[in-house]
C-alpha cells in the first residue's frame, strides 16, 4: 500500500499489505496475519525443492540488479562441507529509495521469515542482516523481532521443532553508501573498510569470511514466504504479460509529487498511472520535467519517456533507463537540472571508496566541472570534458559506483543540454560562487 497513504485500487499490496499496522510488528500479530506459514512449509521441503520453487516463480533481485533469485541460490555448493552464510542487504542508501526501511519498520517478521527460508535453502550456518547505521528505528524494531523469533522458536537450534538450526545476527553499518555493494558489505561485516572486492571469485565461492555466501536484498527476501505459501505459479501470474518480470514491486516515489510514498504494483503497470494516479501527479500548477526511475544511479528520463514506459525491468530499459531499485525521483518544471545533477555527482564523489583511480578522480572532477558551470564560468568544451570523464568512469572500475555517477551526467547533457548552456552563456544567474 502507498504508505503513508491509503492503498490505491491500482496497487497489489502483498509485501506492503500490513504497513502502518503496529500490531503486525509482533510475532503473534504476524502469525495472525498468516506469518511463518512459509517457513513451516519450507522446513518440510528439501533445499532443492525450495530453490526450484523460487526459480519457477521468476523472482528477481529487488536491490537493483534484477538477478534471478533462485538461480543465485543454486550457485551455492550442494554439499555443506564448510560454513555457508546468508547475508541480507539492508543497507538501503540509494537516493530515492526507502522501501526496505518500511518493510523493516512495519513487518520485521516478514523479513526474518524470508531470511530464515533462504538460510535453510542454502544451508547457511548463520544469516547476517546488514542494516545501515542511520536506520535507528528499523534497527530497534528488527532487534526486538529477532529476539522474539528466537523466543518463539522461529529461530535457534530447533526451528519449530524440525531439528533445523537457523541463526540470525544483525550487523550495524556506520555510514557508507558503498557498503550496499555486496562485496563491500562482506568486507564491512568482516571488520574492514568497505572497499568492493574484485570478482571473481564470486560470493557463492568465496564470500564473507572466505566462505560460500548468498546476498539478497530485503525486498527480495520478504517476497519469499509469500511464494512458498501461495506457489510459484501464483507469483508468476501477477505480472501483466512480460514473463521475464514477475510478481509485485515496491516503488518508492519522492520529489515533486502530491503523494510521495511506497506503492506496490504488479510488474508491467504503465508508469504514467504510477506517476499520476498513485502518486497524485505534480504539485498544483506545475508539470513534470524529469524522472529518475531506479534510484539515483540510472539515466534520467524525460517526462515524455517516462509517460510512455511500462514499469518492469524491460519496459524501463526500452525507454532508455533502468528499473534499478525502483526508487523514483520525480522532478517538476521548477527544477534546476544542472544543480541537481551536480548534487548527484557530489554524492558519488563523497561516497567513492577511492580504490579505483577512475572513480576517485572522476567523481571529484565531474563535481568540480559542474561547479564551474554553475558558477557561470563554464565553456562549451566542458560538455566534452564531462563526457570524457564519464566514459572513463563507465565499465572500468571494480564496482559500478562511478558508472552511477556517469549515468545522470551523460543523460542530463543529452536531454537537458540547454540548461547547461544557459549557465555558460550567462542567460541564467550563477547558482554558486566562483570556485
Amino acid at each position, binding site marked *: 500500500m502507498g504508505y503513508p497513504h491509503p492503498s490505491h485500487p491500482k496497487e497489489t499490496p502483498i509485501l506492503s499489505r500490513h504497513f502502518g499496522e503496529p500490531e503486525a510488528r509482533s510475532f503473534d500479530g504476524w502469525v495472525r496475519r498468516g506469518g511463518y506459514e512459509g517457513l513451516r512449509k519450507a522446513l518440510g521441503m528439501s533445499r532443492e525443492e525450495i530453490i526450484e520453487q523460487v526459480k519457477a516463480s521468476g523472482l528477481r533481485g529487488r536491490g537493483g540488479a534484477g538477478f534471478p533469485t533462485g538461480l543465485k541460490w543454486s550457485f551455492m555448493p550442494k554439499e555443506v562441507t564448510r560454513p555457508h552464510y546468508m547475508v541480507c542487504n539492508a543497507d538501503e*542508501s*540509494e*537516493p530515492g529509495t526507502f522501501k526496505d526501511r518500511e518493510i523493516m519498520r512495519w513487518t520485521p517478521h516478514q523479513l526474518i521469515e524470508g531470511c530464515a527460508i533462504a538460510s535453510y535453502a542454502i544451508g547457511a550456518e548463520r544469516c547476517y542482516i546488514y542494516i545501515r547505521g*542511520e*536506520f535507528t528505528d528499523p534497527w530497534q524494531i528488527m532487534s526486538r523481532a529477532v529476539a522474539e523469533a528466537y523466543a518463539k522458536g522461529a529461530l535457534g537450534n530447533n526451528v519449530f521443532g524440525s531439528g533445523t538450526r537457523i541463526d540470525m545476527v544483525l550487523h*550495524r553499518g556506520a555510514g557508507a553508501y558503498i557498503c550496499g555493494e555486496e562485496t563491500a558489505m562482506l568486507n564491512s561485516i568482516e571488520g*574492514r573498510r568497505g572497499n568492493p572486492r574484485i570478482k571473481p571469485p564470486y560470493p557463492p565461492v568465496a564470500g564473507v569470511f572466505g566462505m560460500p555466501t548468498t546476498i539478497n536484498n530485503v525486498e527480495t527476501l520478504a517476497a519469499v514466504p509469500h511464494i512458498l505459501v501461495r506457489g510459484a505459479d501464483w507469483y508468476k501470474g501477477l505480472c501483466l504479460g512480460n514473463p521475464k518480470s514477475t510478481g509485485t514491486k515496491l516503488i518508492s516515489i*519522492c520529489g515533486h509529487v502530491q503523494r510521495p510514498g511506497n506503492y506496490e504494483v504488479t510488474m508491467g503497470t504503465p508508469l504514467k498511472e504510477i506517476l499520476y494516479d498513485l502518486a497524485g501527479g505534480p504539485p498544483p500548477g506545475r508539470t513534470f520535467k524529469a524522472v529518475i526511475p531506479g534510484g539515483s544511479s540510472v539515466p534520467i528520463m524525460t517526462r515524455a519517456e517516462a509517460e510512455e514506459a511500462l514499469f518492469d525491468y524491460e519496459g524501463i530499459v526500452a525507454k532508455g533507463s533502468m528499473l534499478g531499485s525502483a526508487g523514483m525521483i520525480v522532478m517538476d518544471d521548477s527544477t534546476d537540472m544542472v544543480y*541537481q545533477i551536480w548534487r548527484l555527482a557530489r*554524492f558519488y564523489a563523497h561516497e567513492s571508496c577511492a580504490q579505483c583511480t577512475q572513480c576517485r578522480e572522476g567523481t571529484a572532477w565531474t563535481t568540480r566541472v559542474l561547479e564551474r558551470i554553475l558558477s557561470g564560468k563554464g565553456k562549451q568544451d566542458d560538455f566534452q570534458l564531462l563526457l570524457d570523464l564519464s566514459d572513463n568512469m563507465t565499465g572500468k572500475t571494480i564496482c559500478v559506483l562511478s558508472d552511477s555517477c556517469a549515468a545522470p551526467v551523460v543523460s542530463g547533457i543529452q536531454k537537458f543540454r540547454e540548461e547547461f548552456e544557459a549557465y555558460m552563456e550567462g542567460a541564467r544567474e550563477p547558482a554558486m560562487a566562483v570556485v
Partner: protein
Amino acid sequence: MSGGGGHGTQTAPHEPVFVGETRAELDRLFTQYPTKQACLLPALWMVQQARGWISDPAISEVAQVLGLTPAYVKGVVTFYTMYHTHPVGRHFIQVCTTTPCNICGAEDVVKAMLRETGCGELGATSPDGRFTVIEVECLGACGFATPILIDDDFIESVTPEKVSGILQRYP
C-alpha cells in the same frame, strides 16, 4: 600510541571502555562471528555510545581487545562517516540534503538549523556545546523530505518552520 590525537583535546588519561558489562557484551558478540576482527564495527559503536566519540587511546584499546593494530583500526574508523574522531556537541544533528530532499527544500532546513542552533557553519559546535550540525548524504527516507537525525532520533518531514520547536526537545 601517544595521547592527544589530531585535535589536541585529549588530556585526561584514558579510562578503558571494555570493562564490566561492556566487556561482557563484547564477549557475547565474539560468539556471533567466526573472527574477532568482525566485531570491529560493533566495538566501535560501543565506544562511541560510551564516550560520545572515538579517541586515539580508545582506538588503541579496541585494537588491543580485538588483536588488531591501532593503525588498522584507525583506517576503518575513518572510512565510516558515522564514527566521530573528535568531540561533537551534546546533540549531533544530521540533515539530509541529497537530491530528493534537495529539490524539496532541504538546504533551507540546513540554514534554519545553523541559525537556530547557533552553530553558524557545518561541522562546527555551537558555543554552548549543545549542538553540532552536518549535512548527511541520503538518509533513505526520501518520501518524507526532509528527514533529519538528532542523535538516534529519526525525524521525518522537517521544514524550516519546524526547526526551533524540534530543537527545544534537546536541552
